[in-house]
């Protein structure tokens, strides 16, 4: 009757979202009077999970699962859920987990709600709050099936320590050839760069920068802050920056702690993609730019003057506060 979470890892190390999911699960479990079980796939040291309240770990180690295969991973989660007779399965909102979630839901005949923000509004009937209409509204969704699957929106709950002693059990689910109809051939990934998905801070720039040759200061600002770089749609359409940096409605979604927009006017499609970021800062010459209506902090002025100054000030700040 425990709650099952899929604690996602990459190269053996847990992703931060795994700890947020564990923190969230612990609170839901406490409210329901139950415990948290985590299933892991090829994670190294699983003891870290107990810091965030996980009571039991089902540890799956398999060479077959070395690369991510949605169907096989979904099969693992389904079998873990059945083994523990869980009624609630929680996943995070990474690209991989969002790929898995509907497969897990169908396999368990479970109702599924994505983009969940906050604790269940009610546990009987079971209702959760989720974002909809590209962050322009919330929707309270009721799930009526016995087993339920939720995916928690990134950065919507936070990470809370809650020490427990987790019992670890090796788990060997049956994985058949039918799970491998989609085979990974190659992965192309920029190494050593903070990705938009993992970043706590994102520095993003738009057409206001006038040309690709001016991105040096954006990269420097990002590097000082340990941030990922991103760009607006026109910038990626013009080929100034790679498509993988395009954030907005048709690009990557951003749900970060701090989003700094430089020379981006704030078209509605851009805002839709970044609006679930907690704090938004805008730097723009045009005080009438729509971005100022959704930002928390703003500076009206020339990016070419302000960004270099900001770099120096952040450097000094970091030197003092580290």
């Amino acid at each position, binding site marked *: 009757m425990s709650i099952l979470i899929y604690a996602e890892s990459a190269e053996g190390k847990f992703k931060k979202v795994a700890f947020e999911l564990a923190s969230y699960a612990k609170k839901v479990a406490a409210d329901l009077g139950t415990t948290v079980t985590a299933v892991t796939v090829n994670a190294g040291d699983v003891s870290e999970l107990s810091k965030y309240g996980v009571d039991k770990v089902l540890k799956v180690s398999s060479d077959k699962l070395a690369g991510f295969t949605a169907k096989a991973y979904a099969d693992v989660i389904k079998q873990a859920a059945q083994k523990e007779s869980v009624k609630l399965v929680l996943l995070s909102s990474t690209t991989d987990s969002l790929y898995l979630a*509907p497969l897990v839901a169908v396999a368990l005949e479970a109702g599924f709600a994505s983009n969940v923000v906050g604790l269940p509004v009610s546990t009987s009937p079971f209702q959760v709050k989720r974002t909809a209409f590209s962050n322009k509204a919330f929707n309270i969704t009721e799930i009526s099936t016995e087993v339920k699957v939720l995916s928690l929106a990134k950065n919507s709950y936070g990470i809370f320590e809650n020490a427990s002693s987790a019992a670890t059990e090796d788990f060997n689910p049956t994985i058949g050839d039918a799970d491998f109809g*989609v085979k990974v051939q190659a992965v192309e990934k920029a190494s050593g760069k903070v990705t938009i998905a993992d970043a706590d801070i994102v520095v993003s720039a738009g057409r206001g920068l006038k040309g690709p040759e001016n991105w040096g200061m954006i990269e420097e600002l990002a590097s000082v802050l340990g941030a990922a770089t991103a760009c607006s749609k026109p910038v990626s359409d013009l080929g100034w920056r790679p498509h*993988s940096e395009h954030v907005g409605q048709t690009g990557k979604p951003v749900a970060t702690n701090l989003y700094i927009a430089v020379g981006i006017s704030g078209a509605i499609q851009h805002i839709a993609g970044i609006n679930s970021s907690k704090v938004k800062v805008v730097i723009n010459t045009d005080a009438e730019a729509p971005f100022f209506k959704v930002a928390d902090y703003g500076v009206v002025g*020339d990016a070419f003057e302000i960004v270099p100054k900001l770099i120096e000030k952040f450097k000094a700040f970091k030197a003092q506060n580290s």
Partner: protein
Amino acid sequence: MKILVCISHVPDTTSKINFTNGDSEFDTNGVQFVINPNDEFGLTRAIWFQEQQGATVTVVNVGGPDTEPTLRKALAIGANEAIRVNASPTDGFFVAKQLAEVIKTGGYDLVIAGKESLDYNGGMVPGMIAGLLGYNFVNSCIEVTVDGTSAKASREIDGGKEIVATSLPLIIGGQKGLVEEKDLRIPNMRGIMTARTKVLTVLEPVAANSETKAVKFEKPAPKSAVKLFSADDLDGLINALHNEAKVI
């Protein structure tokens, strides 16, 4: 090759989002509906297969008669025929059940649906179809090519892309990248005229449960006004980010 493109009929991005009936329903008053952008990238890629590899392209929507203009637009863009499953799309699972039935009966080789719709952002329909039918499935797909019964695809992953080999029948959760924005087509007069005479079949739904229900909607609390700092007071900004917002 028979391709099915699943079309969601969604409010245009610039629409005002309001709710009615005690905040339990989306207010469609004055709202312009369009083909869901993620579906439109898939549709355009399907038309490419039609022109380059002789595929036939069927578009499908689960919805009432009011969604037919959206299907006609897809026909005007170039789809060969359309199907409307005559039912209110109550939740993602219900829609997936209807689509799975259409796919099974029609014997489609490649099914392209947007990875998520702009209205409910559920992101579950393509995966649920794949789960129900046991077909191969690639989500967040940004490239797909087909050679006989083999397919190659890439999907967007955090920080890059992953290239996969798979086979038909295949379900794609599509997005920008399948084609670029500049490749999207605006229907021309000839397309609009021929779309009027193309076949649009209305099917009655199969029995299926809804597993979830949107019981209520809320709008985010109004935002407080932006705090402005002058270009000479960047220390003020840093101070606010550190002490007030606590994000650095």
